[in-house]
């Protein structure tokens, strides 16, 4: 064994390495000091009625369901649960609320579609955001569509990756989005819209309406 007991460095070299390690750690702390505060909390799990008749996609300018594409066929998967009329706001104002809360926009995960009444076509999600980059263990996840001059949001809480994600809750995420927009100064309408798009595990068919207060 060498004189330095296998250390492989001089005193100077050792202290220099410690310095580099300390500097690197400090830089990392500075980069990661910001963390997204979850808007979760306060959700009453909705009652899912099995026999509710959902409204038709053409009844509202909003989207009603999220669709999965398979070839030229589209099948509905999970319900839209938050909508914004965009009378006093732009679609970008909506996405900025999530952006400002520190949510990630990439990677987007699965490609999903919604029915756009204005063009009579299925439309790929215009925007998506998540609380964490990969959702290893539970996260809020939203997809947004701009349809017929309005914004529709599908919000859910993902299960942990096992390794795919599935839906842990719609209601928690719906309440979470409300919390986020209220904090950003938007108004959640006291009366929700009844889309009748009840879905397990906990979406009761009532869709939150959020608008930006006129300044």
């Amino acid at each position: 064994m060498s004189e330095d007991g296998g250390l492989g460095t001089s005193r100077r070299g050792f202290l220099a390495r410690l310095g580099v390690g300390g500097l690197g750690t400090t830089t990392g702390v500075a980069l990661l000091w910001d963390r997204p505060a979850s808007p979760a909390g306060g959700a009453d799990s909705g009652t899912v009625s099995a026999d509710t008749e959902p409204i038709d996609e053409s009844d509202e300018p909003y989207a009603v369901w999220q669709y999965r594409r398979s070839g030229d066929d589209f099948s509905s998967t999970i319900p839209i649960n938050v909508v914004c009329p965009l009378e006093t706001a732009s679609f970008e104002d909506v996405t900025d609320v999530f952006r400002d809360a520190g949510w990630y926009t990439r990677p987007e995960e699965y490609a999903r579609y919604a029915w756009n009444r204005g063009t009579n076509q299925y439309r790929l999600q215009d925007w998506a955001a998540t609380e964490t980059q990969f959702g290893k263990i539970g996260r809020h996840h939203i997809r947004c569509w701009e349809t017929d001059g309005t914004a529709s949001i599908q919000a859910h809480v993902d299960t942990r990756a096992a390794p795919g994600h599935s839906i842990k809750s719609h209601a928690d995420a719906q309440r979470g989005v409300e919390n986020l927009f209220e904090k950003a100064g938007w108004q959640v309408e006291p009366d929700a819209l009844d889309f009748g798009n009840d879905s397990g595990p906990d979406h009761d068919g009532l869709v939150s309406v959020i608008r930006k207060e006129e300044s």
Partner: protein
Amino acid sequence: MPQNNSGLSHPLLGVNPRLTAVGLGYVIFVAVCVLASVWRRELFLSGGRLPTAIDGLSWFVIFLVSLSTFVAPILYALVNGGPGLAVTIPLAPHLAVAGTTGEIAGDVDVALALAAAGVGGSIALLREMLRRGDGSLSLYPGAVDGAILTTAPTVLGIVVLVRLVGVAGPHATTGLQITAVLSVLAVASLLAVWSQILLTISRSGFC
């Protein structure tokens, strides 16, 4: 120890150059898959639609990232003992996203990756110190670098974990608990490594 000039025999990377090549190849493969997922609109969008196969890519990326966090660092450390690469494996997906989009924050995914880096790096160090010392911990050139490289993410992981407690939401509780367990493991292993380093320094009259 086999010596060659390929660069793959550096002690931070691993013991067996062939396994080191596999480890490096894995990191690059994961980073490429993550980047393809990040830039999928630019790469694959056509006529307002994404090919349905891209959903498969999304699934595969989540699978790879889970593997890179919970399995690969420890596995790599045990079979090939390179702390530098064991630290890189869980961090690479996050670095790939942050490096190309600028989006990074101290969230629970990042905390898990940092703690997993700490566990992978410290197990790699202990494994190599035991091998070289024939069953007792023995320092080797590169061990100090490995210890510093492993301590940094371990400390960072703990800082992020502490920052997250109370704000991460109930759905992240399991993630925080796993981060805590991994951090304890990493700290315990690193204590063994650092005490050996400090012991050696005091013996050699270095300070």
